[in-house]
């Protein structure tokens, strides 16, 4: 079973008297463990689709299924719980909590939701993630004492701390220089391999797209291409 499925999903925004059709009816499925790129020019609907998958926004029409569950019928409280338990977020502009240190930012999602105790096991996982993103010497710093790349590493660790099934990243490298951006993507790819976490990221950078196993191309709110990268799925070739 696919972990994410969109069936003829549409999203319309009322803008004054007119309606903007940001997503005009898209259908696709996403498999567990994939490294997926949603690509397309500015305004093509990438962020809108990520918001639908991330339960940040609701579809005007059509269905969004997470782990086979249709989210249309859920109340805000249940949606928030589902989001907390299944989805991690990496934002373009990092969105760290300014008053919290690196470690506190990473731990923060663990203190929300039903099970909000910081057990020894969870603390060890935080330690592991801090090592994994290479911030062991920055755990006591606040976000304003970190570089952009370091901030995005904190965000990656934060997105992973609840062991989500899916991590969504809307243009995670757009605010970084190309070298740092490459490093961040390599880190995401490494974690995708090590932890089998599904990553869905949007980009309009053609180079980055090539790292993906599964590519969905958009234009004007419609899918133009949806394919699995052959070289990745057939390691022998």
């Amino acid at each position: 079973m696919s972990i994410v499925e969109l069936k003829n999903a549409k999203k319309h925004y009322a803008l004054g008297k007119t309606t903007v059709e940001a997503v005009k009816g898209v259908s696709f499925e996403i498999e567990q463990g994939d490294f997926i790129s949603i690509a397309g020019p500015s305004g093509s609907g990438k962020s809108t689709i990520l918001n639908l998958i991330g339960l940040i926004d609701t579809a005007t029409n059509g269905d969004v299924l997470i782990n086979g569950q249709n989210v249309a019928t859920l109340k805000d409280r249940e949606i928030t719980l589902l989001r907390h338990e299944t989805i991690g977020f990496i934002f373009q502009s990092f969105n760290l909590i300014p008053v919290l240190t690196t470690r506190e930012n990473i731990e923060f999602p663990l203190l929300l939701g039903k099970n909000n105790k910081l057990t020894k096991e969870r603390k060890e996982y935080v330690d592991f993630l801090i090592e994994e993103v290479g911030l062991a010497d920055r755990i006591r710093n606040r976000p304003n004492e970190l570089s952009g790349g370091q901030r995005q590493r904190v965000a990656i660790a934060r997105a992973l701390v609840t062991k989500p099934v899916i991590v969504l990243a809307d243009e995670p490298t757009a605010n970084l220089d190309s070298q740092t951006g490459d490093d961040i993507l390599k880190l995401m790819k490494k974690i995708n391999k090590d932890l089998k976490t599904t990553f869905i990221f949007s980009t309009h950078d053609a180079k980055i797209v090539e790292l993906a196993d599964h590519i969905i191309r958009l234009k004007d709110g419609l899918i133009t291409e949806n394919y699995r990268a052959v070289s990745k799925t057939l390691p022998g070739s």
Partner: protein
Amino acid sequence: MSVATMALKNLSRQKRRSLLLGGAIAFGLLVITIVNGLSGSLITSLEANISNLIPGHVILRGAEKTSTGRVILTLKESEVFQTAVDKLRVPYSYVSKTTNVQSVALVSDFSTTYQSFSGVNLGQGTYLHDKLTIVEGSLDDFDAADNIVISEGVAKKLNVQIGDRISVQSETITGQQNVVDFVLRAIYKDPGVAASLAGAYAPLDRVNALRDMKPGEFTTFGIYLKDVATADQWGALLLKDLQDKGLPFFARGGLQETQKQYRDQTWTGVKYSLYTLNDILSFIKGIFQTLNLIAFLILLVLFVVIMVGITNTYRMVVYERTREIGTLRALGMQRPEVRNLFLYEAVFLGLGGIVVGFVAGVFVLVVVSWIDLSAWKDFNILLKDNHLQLQVNLGSFALNLIVIAGLTALAALFPARRAGKLTPAEALRTTN
């Protein structure tokens, strides 16, 4: 980390803004603490000083109208009162029987002064024996002879020493002039009130002789309670009990009122009146209560302004942190938690202001209570040993704490609820 801890951390984000709002709240509380503390201390000192001047906290008097229409203040016996006091188990420390004369002329070889004069029992275990601070002479065997005790101030005015003769001139109850000679046996420390209020005391029967009253008679039966604050309560109970026994009473009121009733009413025979320390002080207390009320109203206006400030500030804070709210929601924070995050922040701000204001207020009161106000003679009656008595009411502090914390929460509720209602999509999209 709980929502509350995070709210506390957020409070430090806009230090200037927090300081300004917290400072305004602190200022309000400073004023409340000082006004309450001062008026409370003034009233307490007033009560303590006045109760040294009047013959009890609950006072019973009797009046008799003669066939000629003259009103004579007199009580022939006190058994009925003492029985009632014992039956009701009134918690008292002293009872007294006194003959009070409002004004007599005290004449020495050098000068004359007009004082209130009381015939009392000054023996061991009486109120005055315990409360008067004797600076010269003594009260031993006082009740046996023509002894008189006066205050330091009066002694100075009359220029008399222990053992000197003082003549007391007064009207008898029937209106004749009379003079009795006394010997100065003791001088007591000025009670910190205007000298004219510091009365002279002599044995009951000698004063009765001056007034042409029979031995054993008196004008006033006074009860000194263990707790002055219960005077009204016990006064009312006693009055009811005595009325139920069939004793005729004048309507309850202050001194002036009773005087008026003696004159105006068409009554005959014997009639009683009961009044308490509070009846005497009600006028002055009323002034303080009015002052407190005015201070309270000014503060109310101040707090309305502060509340508007809090609402506006938190509207701005929510606006500034919109994207952060979106992030918190995306990470799994529920709507009520987001709302509480802002509510807690405001309440912590309020609590901080309250505590700082209270501590500052107490500090001011402590400093003021150190100041020697002996130069402030006319208001001695409001002081204790020439100082303002420090008085801090923790009960009203607790009340202020709850009310102000509640008000800040209320003021922040509207923006906090808006923060909770933001959808993650719109919150994350904002560009500020």
